[in-house]
């Protein structure tokens, strides 16, 4: 038997080594955060169309009951994360970078946590693939690595190579690490399940070399669950470098191939899933569990209790703050996600979402960016750090001067917004913010263009119609005139005037007669 574990020989361009701070949260075993008194479940928390609420205010719901139904193909179901009464379905603050409100289902929990799960499918190998995909969609499973892309869509294609993303490259976050250490056996079964759905011959687990315990746990589990390695498992150890957990970066690290610009890994015959997603898919199929909780890292120096906890979807951040015994005297900011790609939670009464893998309660001066950005000195460090080999300086100039087509020409849309360029910038320029602004603006302008050309079409059609109507009217008049002329011709041209006069006289008489009657 070949060695299952190996170290990659490939690398990707750029990357950075930020301080990790994973030890803040990865020292303790996984705990349960419990059920908060109120759940604030966001209906648009996944990639795609928001779910449509299917419960009414005052309804009693059980844990696992559907409260939002997916709309269209790119969408996901949303479920109640505990039992209780629906208090309201209204616009509430949500976990979103904008800090704005959107449609949420608010549930007052009753503490019983009564649950209602789906029928388990014990022998998934003998079941039609579509049944399994429907189950994954029904259970509302989305990519738990952070993108929240509906998983049933990503399980659909049939490819030869499955890559499990266990890199977890962002500082502070340690939920996948703890999950692998503690649930390795179940995880290996879960990965086999995903592998069988996709029909992949090979499966590579990509993991950073700073998680040796997790690697050992996985190796042991593979030995136990699949001693002959019939599933062709390989554990590819990649060097610790941010952003090795990016989809395209990890593929390059494992296979040495680059996913072409603007294309999916499918172009290389690869599909990638996150470890936590694989586990959620497995539990949805074999246990009938819908996605009502996820593993989340609670960390940051302001928090007294740190670690990884099973957290119900929709748990308000202010309740987490109490549970983690956060010292509010020193609390500076609350960040959802990591310090590289996360965002600040502006309203703490918003609830967690399916992609909330980490909450950082940062102390004053713990996480800061120097507040004065200086002019670009053209040092080129950003280009060295860019994992996508873009030219961040060029993108910056063009985004700043709003020459968006030039920015697009420099492949702005290949930027993964990892923040490596901002991190290395000695002038503290908020580069990623410029790119996000430019991307938004380009999309908005192209929408406007589409709308304008639609309006033009309608206007031109209207002009055409008016012209046609005018022509038709003229044609009618012409025909009527012709008919009159013809009639007159028959009576004889000389009689025409007389006939007209006689006609008029007759009409007048008839009218008089009528009014007399």
């Amino acid at each position: 038997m070949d060695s299952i574990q190996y170290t990659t020989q490939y690398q990707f361009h750029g990357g950075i080594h930020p301080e990790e701070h994973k030890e803040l949260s990865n020292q303790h075993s996984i705990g349960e955060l419990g059920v908060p008194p109120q759940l604030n479940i966001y209906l648009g928390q996944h990639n795609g169309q928001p779910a449509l609420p299917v419960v009414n205010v005052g309804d009693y719901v059980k844990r696992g009951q559907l409260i939002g139904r997916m709309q269209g193909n790119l969408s996901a179901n949303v479920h109640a994360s505990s039992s209780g009464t629906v208090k309201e379905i209204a616009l509430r603050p949500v976990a979103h970078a904008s800090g704005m409100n959107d449609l949420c289902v608010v549930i007052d929990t009753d503490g019983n946590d009564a649950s209602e799960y789906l029928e388990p499918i014990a022998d998934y190998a003998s079941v039609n693939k579509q049944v399994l995909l429907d189950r994954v969609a029904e259970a509302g499973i989305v990519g738990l690595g952070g993108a929240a892309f509906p998983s049933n869509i990503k399980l659909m294609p049939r490819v030869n190579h499955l890559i499990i993303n266990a890199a977890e490259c962002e500082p502070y976050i340690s939920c996948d690490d703890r999950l692998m250490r503690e649930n390795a056996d179940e995880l290996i079964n879960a990965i086999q399940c995903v592998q069988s759905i996709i029909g992949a011959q090979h499966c590579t687990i990509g993991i950073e070399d700073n998680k040796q315990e997790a690697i050992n746990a996985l190796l042991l589990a593979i030995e136990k669950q699949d001693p002959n390695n019939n599933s062709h498992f390989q554990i590819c150890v990649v060097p610790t470098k941010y952003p090795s957990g990016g989809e395209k970066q990890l593929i390059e690290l494992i296979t040495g191939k680059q996913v072409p610009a603007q294309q999916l890994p499918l172009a290389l015959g690869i599909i990638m899933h996150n470890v936590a997603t694989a586990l959620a898919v497995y539990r949805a199929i074999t246990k009938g569990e819908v996605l009502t909780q996820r593993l989340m890292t609670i960390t940051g120096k302001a928090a007294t209790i740190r670690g990884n906890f099973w957290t119900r979807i929709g748990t308000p951040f202010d309740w987490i703050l109490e549970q983690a015994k956060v010292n509010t005297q020193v609390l500076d900011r609350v960040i959802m996600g990591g310090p590289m790609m996360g965002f600040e939670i502006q309203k703490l009464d918003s609830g967690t979402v399916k992609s909330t893998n980490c909450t950082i309660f940062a102390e004053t001066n713990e996480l800061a960016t120097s507040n004065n950005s200086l002019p670009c000195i053209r040092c080129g460090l950003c280009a060295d750090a860019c994992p996508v080999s873009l030219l961040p300086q060029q993108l910056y100039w063009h985004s700043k001067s709003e020459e968006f087509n030039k920015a697009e020409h420099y492949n702005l849309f290949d930027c993964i917004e990892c923040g490596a360029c901002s991190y290395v910038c000695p002038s503290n320029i908020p580069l990623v913010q410029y790119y996000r602004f430019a991307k938004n603006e380009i999309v908005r302008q192209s929408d406007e263009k589409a709308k304008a050309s639609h309006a033009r079409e309608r206007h031109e059609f209207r002009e055409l119609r008016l012209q046609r109507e005018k022509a038709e009217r003229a044609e009618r008049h012409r025909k009527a005139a012709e008919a009159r002329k013809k009639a007159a011709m028959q009576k004889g041209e000389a009689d025409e005037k007389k006939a007209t006069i006689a006609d008029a006289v007759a009409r007048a008489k008839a009218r008089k007669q009528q009014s007399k009657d």
Partner: protein
Amino acid sequence: MNTLMAVVLLVLLAALFGALLGYAAVRFKVESDPIVEQIDNILPQTQCGQCGYPGCRPYAEAIANGDEINKCPPGGEAGVKALADLLGREPKPLDESLEESVPKVAVIREDECIGCTKCIQACPVDAIVGAAKLMHTVIADECTGCDLCVPPCPVDCIDMIPLTNNDLHHWQWPNPNSEPHSPFESEQIIPVKQVS
């Protein structure tokens, strides 16, 4: 004799190349975008007529014939700048008699509508539906916000509502360059750089 040969040869060559060029000019003719088309593409197609022409295309034709480029309020400063870039003219501020307009949508107060069909006739993009003596309504998605339906209405039941788009789905990352209006507190920016 040699001179004659040279002359004949040169004449032949000239005729040959002339024929070749003539053929190529016909065969490989490039259909270039006429300038009116390009101007029309920049104009916002609200068909509002504030420029003094009956629609965007007539104004595009007028610009091509030398009219000013600053008569389109819905296009705003950005539109003037794009036209200036295209035509190689100096960008200038919007005509003083016109104000830059915000995107709007027409809404008919339906219980007040008497069904006169006057607004339907005025709408340049057929965005109003209704029949004589029956209530009319505006298809909001098709409305360009041109105001043309407002004056003909005999009972003044049409309101122009500014499009706010102030919800999460229309939210955009703010421009970091517009410092004074930026909601970013600089120390709120992520990625963070200093981790203590």
